[in-house]
């Protein structure tokens, strides 16, 4: 089953284009995700990176139509996928897309694996739900997928229950399920955060290989800059529900522009020889009922000045590299301290 870009799309048009997405929880005085835009192209890996609570998971859930109903609401935005706006589709149409043309992998595999069904049946089920195949064919597909995600002795594992597998194996099963119908877009929400580094390396390798084979577009949500550096083509850095910087992975690491990106990168300890005390970003993310009206990073930003009372727009600072800071590039605004 070859993967195709959405119907009628020109060759390098985005698989998914999100524009001005805002989400709000019931009773909250401000948007938890605020004016977020990003796009991902065929075969491309977009990493969305940010600290816990910045809105990564709710963003992913909103695209899949999985926000908790009555609790969270889409305030604005469009998410164009295959010519349709995901945010405007009825639940039934979204259910047809999920697990077929768009798939999602969660941090905790047990949230999407049913503990009381055999894993082979669970994979076959998702194939049967979306494809005109027989039970036998679906089962064969399940085995093929378990082999593709390199589960040893796959044919013997089809009848295992999820609890009989290790954390790493469960994550492989999740990936097998997510890719069983050759999706055009895969959204992975911290798929390796709960795993040991050795197992994480296996899973990242696997995702990269499978993506290369199939040409699937990948949105990888993570808080780990190491994982970002490892697999991203493009990066979107989020802070408190907004995109603060966005660009090709090399630009983000070699030419970081936003104070938050810079602070985040310099507070990660290095695996190289120690180079003194860690830099830190003071304070913490403001609570939603205490969100500044202007730049949301202002209370923690060492560069904050009078202009920061107004929210800065994302501005172009290099080839397809944008940052939302009034004072970027910082060295020209703060020349005196640079020397």
């Amino acid at each position, binding site marked *: 089953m070859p993967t195709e870009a959405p119907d009628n799309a020109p060759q390098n048009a985005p698989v998914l284009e999100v524009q001005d997405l805002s989400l709000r929880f019931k009773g909250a005085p401000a948007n938890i995700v605020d004016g977020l835009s990003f796009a991902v192209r065929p075969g491309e890996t977009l990493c969305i990176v940010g*600290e*816990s609570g910045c809105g990564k998971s709710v963003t992913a859930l909103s695209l899949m139509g999985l926000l908790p109903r009555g609790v969270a609401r889409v305030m604005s935005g469009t998410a164009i996928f295959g010519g349709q706006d995901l945010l405007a589709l009825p639940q039934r149409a979204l259910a047809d897309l999920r697990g077929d043309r768009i798939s999602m992998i969660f941090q905790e595999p047990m949230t999407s694996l049913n503990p009381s069904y055999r894993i082979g049946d669970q994979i076959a089920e998702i194939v049967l739900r979306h494809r005109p195949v027989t039970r036998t064919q679906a089962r064969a597909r399940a085995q093929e997928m378990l082999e593709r995600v390199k589960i*040893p002795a796959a044919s013997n594992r089809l009848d295992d229950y999820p609890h009989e597998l*290790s*954390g*790493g*194996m469960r994550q492989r099963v999740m990936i097998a399920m997510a890719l069983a119908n050759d999706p055009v877009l895969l959204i992975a929400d911290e798929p390796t955060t709960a795993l*040991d*580094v*050795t*197992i*994480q*390396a*296996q899973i*990242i*390798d696997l995702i990269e290989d499978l993506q290369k084979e199939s040409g699937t577009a990948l949105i990888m949500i993570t*808080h780990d*800059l*190491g*994982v*970002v*550096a*490892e697999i*991203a083509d493009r990066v979107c850095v989020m802070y408190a529900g907004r995109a603060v910087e966005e660009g090709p*992975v*090399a630009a983000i*690491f*070699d*030419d*970081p*522009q936003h*104070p938050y990106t*810079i*602070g*985040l*990168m*310099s*507070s*990660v*300890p*290095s*695996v*190289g*020889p*120690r180079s003194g*005390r*860690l*830099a*830190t*970003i*003071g*304070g*913490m993310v403001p609570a939603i009922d205490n969100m500044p009206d202007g730049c949301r990073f202002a209370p923690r930003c*060492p*560069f904050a000045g009078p202009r920061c009372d107004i929210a800065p727009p994302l501005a172009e600072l290099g080839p397809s590299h944008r940052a939302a800071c009034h004072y970027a590039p*910082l*060295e020209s605004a*703060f020349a005196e*301290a*640079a020397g």
Partner: protein
Amino acid sequence: MSLTTRDKIIETRAVTKRFGGRKSLFKPATSVSAVNGVSLAIKRGETFSIVGESGCGKSTLARLLVRLLTPSDGAVLYDGNDISALSEQEMRRLRKDLQFVFQDPFSSLNPRMSVGALIEEPMKVHTTLTRSERRQKVADLLNRVGLRPAFANRYPHEFSGGQRQRIGIARALASGPKVIVGDEPVSALDVSVQAQVINLLEDLKSEFDLTLILIAHDLAVIRHMSDRVAVMYLGEIVELAPNDALFDKPLHPYTQALMRAIPIASPHGRSMKAALSGDVPSPLDPPSGCRFHPRCPHATDLCSQQKPAPVPVAGDRTVACHHWEKIADDGQSPVQEPPRSPNAEKRFALFRTRSQQKEPTTATRP
């Protein structure tokens, strides 16, 4: 190198901890040796770290070191005295010296106690301070870990992860300890907050002359904070070495594999390759011989038959592998962090300078 008793604050001799059912002649073993015959010595004033995959016995070993667990076999010595068989009563005096910081301190603490009461409690047990002296010390400690003294009247659930960790640290300091064990003290924290707590731990360690025993699964945190590092695999220490030596030239195949799996935060160093296949075997039924042999790329017949003993190696280190000398010769240094770009360097420096101008301490001010 031989250490005198004065240098060694904690020592273990072939310490073992088994959990679960007793071995019987008729049934297969149902007990797990979570820690299996570990001998090590922790130097006064050092930061000693333990790394390894989930379930390898790090927490169990750490708890044995400060007698939060009683060994099944072997001995644990504190200041040269065997503490493995002390009664609860006798241990009470030592508790003052040996404190523990958990991954999330409040999962194990009474949510109905105020922060002040939580920090005061160890002082009540271990010191003769008066009520008002204790109150004063609570305020001092809160201040020292970067929190407002007024927080003493609030309750745990009102705080963020980073703040809770600071409160946990203040509580651990309250009795005036000599040793603090941190079991993943920063793992649950976000990067920016993690850096604050790492700096705080380092400051407190030198200010209070502490010995720090650190468990972390993040090898970058280990590299940044440790003096020496012990690498554990299935309940055993497979390599123990000074920090830089271990990262510059890991000798044991397992250490090498761990290091190759570290994701490097630079797009020019895309090197992370799954060096290890398979999962950690069940500790219920550990492999024969070298416990690492089913996953080891260098394993020979000898490895599945005979357990390698830890051997001393030049440079104050030990390694437990039959073939380490041959393996060491393949000469690759697995952890390479490419240099930062000039633009990144420049802006990091600017960020540091501005942060220091704006905020002289690392204190959190919510």
